[in-house]
């Protein structure tokens, strides 16, 4: 796969460029729009929830932002990725190109958005008086696993979407539920151990928790956390690759 990726590097670059241009053409704010989304979510959540959940907590804004940052990335990446294969049907039914390139291109696009939001995030941390330590460098780890996780889920969803168009709607409902289940604006400290275990099974929450651990507590997350994140990312990628390998020749019939 790496070899084909290398031979198709030029196409890949052009696809990324195309997606980027298409999204931001004719908008004055351009890339700013995509940063606006998490910021607005952040603002609303702060306004609504600070009275309930933020009273006994330092740096509640940063706490919120950690959740929003990761969750918005996940939600954007998966919903955009879902349409990436079907949206390029006109191409892969006419030219013999590796189909996963479209999803990878959309992954890169959302990664860029995430990176920009991350800069804003650090700015907010600074405003919030968070202490910057060398441990911030560790954030590269959950970013890498989250990227792999998003890409894997995107592969699965984009393949599914070709067969079942209503996945889009179902997925949106699921993401909504997952948002409430990811402890973005509340803490899980008050729940029973069993409930806490349920949270631990949510990969998105695990990534958010990693961010919080580093940024708010200045601590290094446990080895178990690291392994879990890597395992989840690997599982998602394997599932995605399986879908594309299994159905590679079938997509054509359903577009």
């Amino acid at each position: 796969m790496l070899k084909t990726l290398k031979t198709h590097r030029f196409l890949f670059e052009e696809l990324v460029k195309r997606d980027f241009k298409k999204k931001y053409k004719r908008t004055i704010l351009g890339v700013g729009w995509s940063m606006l989304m998490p910021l607005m979510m952040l603002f609303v959540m702060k306004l609504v929830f600070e009275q309930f959940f933020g009273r006994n907590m330092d740096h509640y804004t940063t706490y919120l932002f950690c959740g929003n940052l990761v969750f918005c990335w996940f939600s954007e990446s998966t919903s955009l990725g879902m349409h990436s294969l079907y949206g390029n049907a006109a191409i892969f039914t006419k030219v013999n190109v590796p189909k996963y390139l479209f999803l990878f291109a959309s992954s890169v696009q959302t990664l860029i958005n995430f990176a920009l939001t991350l800069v804003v995030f650090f700015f907010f941390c600074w405003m919030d008086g968070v202490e910057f330590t060398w441990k911030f460098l560790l954030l590269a780890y959950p970013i890498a696993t989250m990227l792999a996780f998003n890409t894997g889920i995107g592969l699965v969803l984009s393949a599914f979407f070709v067969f079942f168009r209503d996945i889009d709607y179902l997925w949106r409902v699921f993401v909504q539920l997952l948002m409430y289940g990811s402890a973005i604006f509340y803490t899980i400290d008050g729940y029973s151990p069993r409930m806490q275990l349920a949270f631990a099974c949510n990969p998105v929450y695990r990534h958010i928790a990693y961010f919080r651990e580093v940024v708010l507590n200045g601590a290094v997350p446990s080895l178990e956390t690291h392994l879990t994140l890597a395992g989840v990312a690997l599982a998602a990628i394997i599932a995605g690759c399986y879908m594309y390998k299994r159905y590679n020749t079938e997509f054509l019939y359903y577009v």
Partner: protein
Amino acid sequence: MSDKKAMLECRGVSIRYRIGDFKNIGLKEWVMRRLTGNYKVVDFWADRGITFSIDKGDMLGIIGSNGAGKSTLLKAVSGIMEPTEGTIVRHGRVSALLELASGFDGDLTIKENTYLRGAMLGYTRAFLDRTFRQIISFAELDGLEDRPFRQLSSGMKSRLAFSIASLVKPDLLILDEVLAVGDGAFRQKSESKMKEIIGGGATTILVSHSIGQIRSLCNKVLWLNKGCQIAFTDDVAGVCDCYEEFLHGHSQAVYDPVSAKARISARAEAAARKAAAARQMAEDAEKIGKVRELLKAYKNLSEATGNMA
């Protein structure tokens, strides 16, 4: 690779489409129908048992009326589709020019689209940087590079598509109705460009509704009808004759080499007779002309002598 080795070999290739399964109903409906046992699938075979092979330097024409399975077969040959049954063996780089004008993005500019399309066809960035001006000027789109693609007329779109695609240097070239691009002047240009590529030694598969084109360009022909293979042979003229008869409703979709040959020789005889008759007529005309001249000369002469008298 030796010249004797087949560039492309299709053995018993069948391609099936499924109609009426979950394609249009969505997940929820699919689950419901599965549960109620109301789930039906209809198979549709676009191609059935197609067998042929072409060697290096061959030019294969594929003929058949609409829905004969030509485009589907080409998709399988170019590797976009996998045959449901049978095998396809390719040797060398395959480049397919199918439905040229589709797959562009209306929101991007002409330049961006050119690079994207070039990348899809497997060109490198350096190659495109080098040939970009040439592409634009061949498509006669100078000065429009930064216009959004959707502003182009459909003729301009296919011109651009053709000039990008015509840079390919493949071992096996697949052309699906692409010789007919643009207006009169551009059509001539594109045809001569196409001939240049073909003349460059590429093995070519050509799908065309123009029988004349098949007759003049191809040395092998494959006739498909409703997914079935009627004929694959190097008797291009014979198959084209049968196909034309079939098109005019004079006969069934069958190819019989013996009768085709007989028809060809009959036609050749008729042509020869015609030519002979024409020659005869020309000769006669010449004789008549000579006689007339003689008469005229005689008349002049007699008039002159009459005057003298």
